[in-house]
């Protein structure tokens, strides 16, 4: 695995306030990581440095060999796919189809590829029957998926998702994360910002905890959720399965996912084993 993103000594200022105070981060190609932390910690700011939307006031951000200081955001469009928190800031076309095609047109992807890309992006997010609809006639949840579809159509190497499931119900959230998961399986690097800890515990492999502009922790996902002190310090919620395991004094392997299913499985075998 090679290094795809390298951030060194990143400082970021906005309106004379320093938001990021020296971030060092290295992301390999194909990783699936989550960025968490309280509001105001600088998560969105950090994301915006990944495609050159924001330039460092100090330090460097190198994505796939390109220094973000040297190029504008549009140059990174095919490399870094960015899903914004508010889909309404992105949607601009009169039909879902045109919306998904927007990026294809502007990044100069060959015309004959458009139809297939639009079809597959919309199908994967359950939007096939809405292709001719006006995005603004759809619910907020569907609009969020439309925005995501238009980013996916570009087949970027890195997919940056800023609260992608915030407007979704359980089914929609599952759909989106399954898509992200399968993209990750075929090599796309995923960077996720979310407040939904359950989601992160299920889909991400690495968690970076950002507090007040600094990296508080950078660990494997399960190690993160086991550390109650860290979660409290970062103002994050603890997870049910972890709480229960801890209360019951059950230990798990460091990298074993802790979900209701795995916990119940372990309990089941403990109980069954004890009976023989």
């Amino acid at each position, binding site marked *: 695995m090679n290094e795809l993103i390298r951030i060194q000594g990143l400082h970021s200022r906005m309106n004379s306030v320093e938001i990021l105070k020296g971030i060092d981060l290295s992301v390999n190609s194909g990783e699936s990581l989550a960025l968490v932390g309280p509001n105001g910690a600088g998560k969105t700011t950090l994301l915006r440095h990944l*495609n050159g*939307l924001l330039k460092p006031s100090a330090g460097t951000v190198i994505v796939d060999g390109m220094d973000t200081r040297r190029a*504008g*955001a*549009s140059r*990174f*469009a*095919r490399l*870094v*796919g*960015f899903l*914004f928190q*508010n889909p*309404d*800031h*992105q*949607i*601009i*076309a*009169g039909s879902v189809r045109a919306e998904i095609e*927007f*990026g294809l*047109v*502007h*990044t*100069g992807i060959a015309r004959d590829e458009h139809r297939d890309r639009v079809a597959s992006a919309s199908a994967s997010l359950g939007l096939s029957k809405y292709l001719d609809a006006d995005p*603004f006639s759809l619910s907020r949840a569907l609009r969020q998926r439309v925005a995501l579809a*238009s*980013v996916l159509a*570009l087949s970027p190497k890195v997919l940056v998702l800023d609260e992608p499931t915030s407007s979704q119900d359980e089914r929609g959230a599952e759909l989106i994360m399954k898509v992200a998961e399968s993209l990750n399986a075929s090599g796309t690097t995923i960077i996720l910002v979310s407040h939904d800890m359950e989601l992160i515990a299920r889909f991400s492999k690495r968690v970076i905890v950002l507090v007040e502009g600094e990296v508080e922790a950078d660990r494997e996902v399960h190690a993160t959720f086991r550390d109650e002190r860290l979660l409290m310090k970062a103002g994050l919620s603890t997870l049910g399965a972890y709480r229960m395991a801890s209360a019951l004094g059950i230990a798990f392997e460091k990298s074993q996912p802790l979900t209701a299913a795995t916990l119940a499985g372990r309990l089941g075998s403990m109980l069954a084993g004890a009976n023989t």
Partner: protein
Amino acid sequence: MKKLRDYSPLAKFILMLSVIASAYLTDSLYILFSLIVLQGFAASREGAWRTYGKTMLALTVGALTLTLFQIFSIDEGTTVFTLIPSLGIGSVTDLGIHDSLMMSVRMMASVGVIPLMVALTPSPQIISLVSGTFGLSPSYTCVLITALRFIPTFGERMGKVMQAEACRGYRADTANPFRKIGMILRLSLPLLVTCVRDVDSLTLSLEARGFDPESKTKPERIKPQSIEYVALVIALLAVASLAAGRLIG
């Protein structure tokens, strides 16, 4: 004494028009300056000094620029001094100084009163006044005014949209001003559409909080009192005398 902001919107509108009319009916720098002083006085009494101060600062810059342009183009009168005597360029006459100064102060006096009055009038009152006076449906006026109010947000939103589109490859980061303008225009229409869509939920929010455009066009609780009539009479008399002065003199 009753505050200006509590006057009925029609009275405020007439007062505003009187100030603007006076500014154009007089040729006296003294009167123009006193109009500005009057506005400043009103602004500080009403707690709108910050807004007024900012407006006047911006207008002063505009006025100075205007003065500079005008001052060199008026040749009548006695030359007071010349910029480059050897070349005979840039002569400034006493009449030139007076006239260009007057134009600028007139501009400041007439334009400055508008944001002052707007700051002192809550938008529902403006809506009621406009829809009542022009016979427009209150909802339509509400949409219009709300959309206008959102120009600062419109600009901010425009910025966010351009960022989002840049991330999808749209080359918004071009130094070419023509391309930039073209880009802004292209993005403006859908942006305006979303703003108008927003206006629907904004209207809902306004109405839920007590603003009902479908009701009477006069805002409640603003019954004109005698002081307003006095102020109106004084203003109208002043305008009339200025007009008369012009006609006679």
